[in-house]
């Protein structure tokens, strides 16, 4: 039986040069020390690594899994350690880099446990396909299309013919030749698996007539298996899948379809051997037969190379004559591409490496003009007009290129091979194809962008319309209301029935209010209500301010500075609201305690006056600080009026000084005053108020300092400003110290009588403060770290950081102490008689906590300092690691402190 061979048009007969390597058996090169495994050795999506650096892997173990449908996994070709997953140069015509897994061989070459399928005829087809896919088998002929995907692309019985490609038409390459000669049984094994999977009517192996030994070997292996071995005449490019299909079946694959669409599948012999290994032996694709040839090698031969073996390792093995090496071609001389370096890895698709001398592949001569001789169109296997394509490619006439079917070009190089003018035709076509693809992508993107732009426009329009509608509706409602009011005013009689319900409501509300007043009065707290009222008013004002600020923030999507400022304002106001609310509560509670005692009534107004004074002062200070802040923010932009700023800041500081003094006075004053006056209960609320006030003041001062710092960062290095800042910081510290004093001051006074109930809120406040401070310290540390990443090293900086670390450590210790302190607290409680100690213990504890607080604040300051130093630090990044470590330690300490605090509060 002799099959009719359908000759395809064109084709060329380049010198074969196969004898050099075809006579030696497949050799096994020594294990390379290091393997580079690109994640993308196939067509489709790159594989996804499933190992990490440092992992020990066994031979055949999965390193990267398939990522998507058209993709293939990558396995370890030998046992060893993963030393890196990084971008490396890969054998690609562009010379670009791609992500690779680097595997350091351990020399043991130990296999992972394999799971062969003993009887594939009994196994489910899906399972077999999955197994082939999981083994990473891809088309070894060149394209690297995942083999299982191709098999699964059409349902069963749709494939009537399987063409096995053993043509190997490219000169020099003998990998398939040797494979067929030596491992014909494996190929046939793969074919039988394929037959089991696809059940085709016909299986034809196509081999060029220049490989008679391979033909014999295959014929012998196929005997009695109903597999046809067809010999095709030697003519490049008969090894192209579609050429071979035409040669053997006379069928053409339509230009807008694939071979599976006409029921034909084409597989390279190497692919089928790999399929056999994957199923029968359970081995993934980790090695392939590669031809090493070229005149720069002493011993051209075929080797079974592990995927990822560096080319130079193989060339060395074949006796590379380094002096004579002029160009290294991956693939054949017709379609292969040159490698610029010899350390590139062997891929799954690497069928040949040609180490060529200058004489072998001389540089292309200067191209002459095209004379349209037509030799190229004679040689073209797909009946294109290469001369016209060249013409239009040069003129960038893309319409004409498409019209001349540029995208049907298989880039076989036959035209360029015969071109008498030595024009690099294929490169023209590749460039034009790339250009057209790029333009198409651009066009698509433009379409897409247009749609997005239009959608956005529509959205904005809709939003605008909605806003407009809302505004209109509001206006209408307002007009309606006005009209109604006017009508009601003009005609009260008429309005009455309409508004009767409303009027009733109002009446009811009024009644409720009076009732409440009455009850309050009955409860005998009219005096208290006055204080409450005051507080209430304050609270509502602050709330209003807060709301206003929030609204402003919502509206102002404007500049960042205003944003930040507003935010701080809001935060401040929120804090104020919280305090005021608490105060209010306390005030509400206090009278309950004070109610039975008359003197309380008298004492309070006195205290209130003091408080008021303080309040006014603090408000003024606040205003001044705010002003300074705003000025500082502006200074961020123009550093010209820095002197002015300094002055303002100093003024603010003086204000703060005064405030501090006042606070101290306030703190000191109440102590003796209540001492002089007999009522003991009076000082309590006053004191707590003063403390709170102080606290708020302190928080504000801190905020101001922060603000100033930020402004400073923007303003650049101005020593004066820095000084000012330091002063401000000192002030803040002083304020805090004052606070401490204030906190300590009340201690002796209320010591005896202070109810535990009262003390607790104070405590919880302190704890909160500590917590907040710890959080802030952590944030500061983080910020500093970020700054560190950018900044370089500075000895001062390091010092500062070490200080910060020390502070943090101290803080931690203090926290621990605080955490331990509560432990003895419960001890007294068992003794029920000692009521007082239990109560007393708490204030003492609060002192400890306050100390902690101070320490935390100091730590924070240190961290901030470090941060600033970091900001100032230059670019040199020599000791950055050290700094980072220090910072991390500081952060850890801060974390520990926070934890300790939590414990302490628990």
């Amino acid at each position, binding site marked *: 039986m002799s099959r009719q061979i359908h000759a395809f048009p064109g084709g060329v007969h380049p010198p074969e040069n196969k004898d050099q390597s075809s006579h030696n058996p497949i050799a096994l090169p020594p294990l390379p020390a290091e393997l580079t495994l690109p994640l993308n050795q196939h067509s489709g999506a790159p594989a996804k690594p499933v190992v990490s650096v440092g992992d020990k892997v066994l031979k055949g173990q999965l390193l990267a899994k398939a990522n998507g449908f058209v993709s293939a996994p990558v396995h370890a070709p030998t046992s060893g350690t993963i030393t890196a997953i990084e971008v490396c140069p890969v054998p*690609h015509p*562009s010379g*670009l880099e791609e992500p690779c897994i680097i595997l350091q061989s351990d020399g043991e070459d130990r296999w992972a446990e394999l799971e062969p399928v003993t009887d594939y005829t009994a196994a489910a087809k899906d399972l077999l396909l999955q197994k082939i896919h999981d083994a990473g088998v891809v088309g070894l002929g060149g394209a690297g299309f995942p083999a299982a995907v191709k098999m699964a692309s059409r349902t069963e019985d749709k494939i009537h013919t399987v063409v096995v490609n053993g043509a190997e038409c490219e000169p020099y390459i003998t990998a398939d030749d040797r494979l067929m000669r030596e491992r014909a049984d494996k190929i046939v094994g793969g074919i039988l698996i394929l037959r089991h999977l696809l059940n085709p009517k016909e299986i034809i192996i196509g081999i060029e007539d220049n490989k008679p030994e391979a033909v014999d070997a295959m014929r012998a292996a196929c005997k009695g298996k109903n597999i046809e071995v067809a010999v095709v005449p030697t003519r490049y490019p008969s090894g192209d899948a579609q050429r071979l299909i035409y040669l053997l079946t006379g069928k053409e694959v339509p230009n807008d379809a694939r071979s599976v669409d006409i029921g034909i599948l084409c597989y390279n012999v190497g692919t089928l051997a790999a399929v056999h290994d994957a199923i029968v032996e359970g081995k993934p694709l980790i090695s392939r037969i590669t031809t090493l040839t070229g005149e720069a090698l002493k011993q051209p031969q075929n080797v079974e190379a592990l995927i990822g073996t560096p080319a130079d390792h193989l060339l060395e093995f074949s006796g590379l004559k380094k002096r004579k090496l002029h160009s290294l071609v991956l693939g054949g001389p017709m379609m292969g591409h040159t490698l610029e370096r010899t350390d590139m890895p062997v891929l799954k698709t690497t069928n040949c490496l040609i180490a060529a001398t200058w004489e072998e592949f001389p540089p292309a001569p*200067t191209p002459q003009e095209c004379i349209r001789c037509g030799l190229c169109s004679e040689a073209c296997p797909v009946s294109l007009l290469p001369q016209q394509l060249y013409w239009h490619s040069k003129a960038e006439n893309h319409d004409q290129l498409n019209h001349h079917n540029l995208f049907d070009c298989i880039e076989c190089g036959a035209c360029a091979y015969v071109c008498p003018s030595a024009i690099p035709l294929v*490169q*023209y076509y590749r460039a034009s194809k790339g250009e057209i693809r790029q333009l198409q992508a651009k066009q698509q993107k433009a379409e897409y962008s247009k749609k*997005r732009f239009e959608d956005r426009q529509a959205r904005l329009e809709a939003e605008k319309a909605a806003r407009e509608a809302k505004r209109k509706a509001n206006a209408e409602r307002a007009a309606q209301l006005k009209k109604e009011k006017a009508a009601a005013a003009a005609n009260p009689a008429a309005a009455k029935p309409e508004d009767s319900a409303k009027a009733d409501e109002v009446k009811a509300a009024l009644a409720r209010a009076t009732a409440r007043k009455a009850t309050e009065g009955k409860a005998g707290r009219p005096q208290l209500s006055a204080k409450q009222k005051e507080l209430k008013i304050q609270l509502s004002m602050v709330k209003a301010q807060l709301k206003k600020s929030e609204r402003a923030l919502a509206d102002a*999507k404007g*500049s960042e500075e205003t944003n930040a400022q507003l935010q701080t304002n809001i935060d401040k106001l929120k804090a104020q609201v919280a305090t005021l609310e608490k105060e209010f509560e306390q005030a509400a509670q206090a009278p309950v305690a004070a109610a039975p005692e008359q003197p309380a009534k008298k004492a309070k107004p006195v205290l209130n006056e003091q408080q008021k004074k303080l309040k006014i002062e603090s408000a003024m200070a606040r205003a001044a600080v705010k002003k300074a802040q705003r000025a500082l923010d502006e200074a961020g932009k123009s550093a010209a009026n820095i002197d002015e700023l300094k002055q303002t800041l100093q003024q603010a500081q003086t204000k703060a000084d005064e405030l501090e003094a006042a606070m101290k006075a306030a703190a000191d004053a109440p102590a003796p005053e209540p001492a002089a006056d007999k009522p003991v209960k009076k000082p309590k609320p006053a004191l707590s108020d003063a403390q709170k006030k102080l606290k708020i003041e302190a928080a504000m001062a801190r905020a101001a300092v922060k603000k100033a710092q930020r402004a400073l960062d923007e303003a650049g290095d101005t020593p004066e400003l820095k000084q000012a800042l330091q002063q401000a910081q000192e002030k803040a510290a002083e304020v805090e110290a004052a606070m401490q004093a204030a906190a300590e001051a009340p201690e002796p006074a209320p010591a005896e009588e202070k109810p535990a109930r009262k003390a607790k809120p104070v405590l919880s406040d302190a704890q909160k403060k500590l917590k907040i401070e710890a959080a802030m310290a952590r944030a500061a540390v983080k910020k500093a770290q970020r700054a560190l990443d950018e900044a370089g090293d500075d000895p001062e900086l390091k010092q500062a950081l070490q200080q910060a670390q020390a502070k943090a450590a101290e803080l931690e210790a203090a926290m621990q102490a605080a955490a331990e302190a509560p432990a003895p607290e419960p001890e007294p409680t068992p003794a029920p008689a000692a009521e007082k100690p239990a109560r007393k213990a708490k204030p003492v504890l609060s002192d400890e906590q306050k100390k902690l607080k101070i320490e935390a604040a100091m730590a924070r300051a240190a961290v901030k300092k470090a941060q600033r130093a970091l900001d100032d630090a230059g670019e040199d990044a020599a000791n950055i690691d050290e700094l980072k470590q220090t910072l991390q330690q500081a952060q850890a300490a801060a974390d520990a402190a926070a934890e300790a605090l939590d414990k302490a509060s628990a």
Partner: protein
Amino acid sequence: MEIVLYAVGALLLLALVCGAILGFASERFKVEGDPIVDQINALLPQTQCGQCGHPGCRPYAESIANGEAINRCPPGGQATINALADLLDVEAVPLDDEHGEEKPPMVAYIREDECIGCTKCIQACPVDAILGAAKQMHTVIVSECTGCDLCVEPCPVDCIDMVPLEVTTRNWKWDKPLAPDMIIATDRGGQTA
């Protein structure tokens, strides 16, 4: 006298017939489909960058239809100019430098550490390619970005860079070889291979 009348009559008849044919043809072969503005707009790169001096691509398309120069679109570059010249049957002129120069495809990149979350770039982006919210870090969706650089200017902290689109093995393409006469004229001088 008679002959003059004949001549006039014949000419009149001819005019009528020709007129009828032309009228019929104009009705019969009426060109339907995209008005010219849509066709021009389809060729523009839709970056909406405004470098042409118009607030978007469509306005520029409209003004090209009204006779404005076709060489004012730097993002489109020479390819767009050629396509427009082809469509409008005018001469393809080089890009007008006043409106910018042709650059490789760019994409905006936000240095995320520096972003303060002001949303200004989000508002500036004509194709909603920036993701983020107030006080949150913003980021550019690379596949949506047209590289118009309209977001660069509004950023208060200058944390947006325009970087050229990275070339990978996936989007890499071969360069066109030097044309023979170019090699001869420029590279080799009088010395030929």
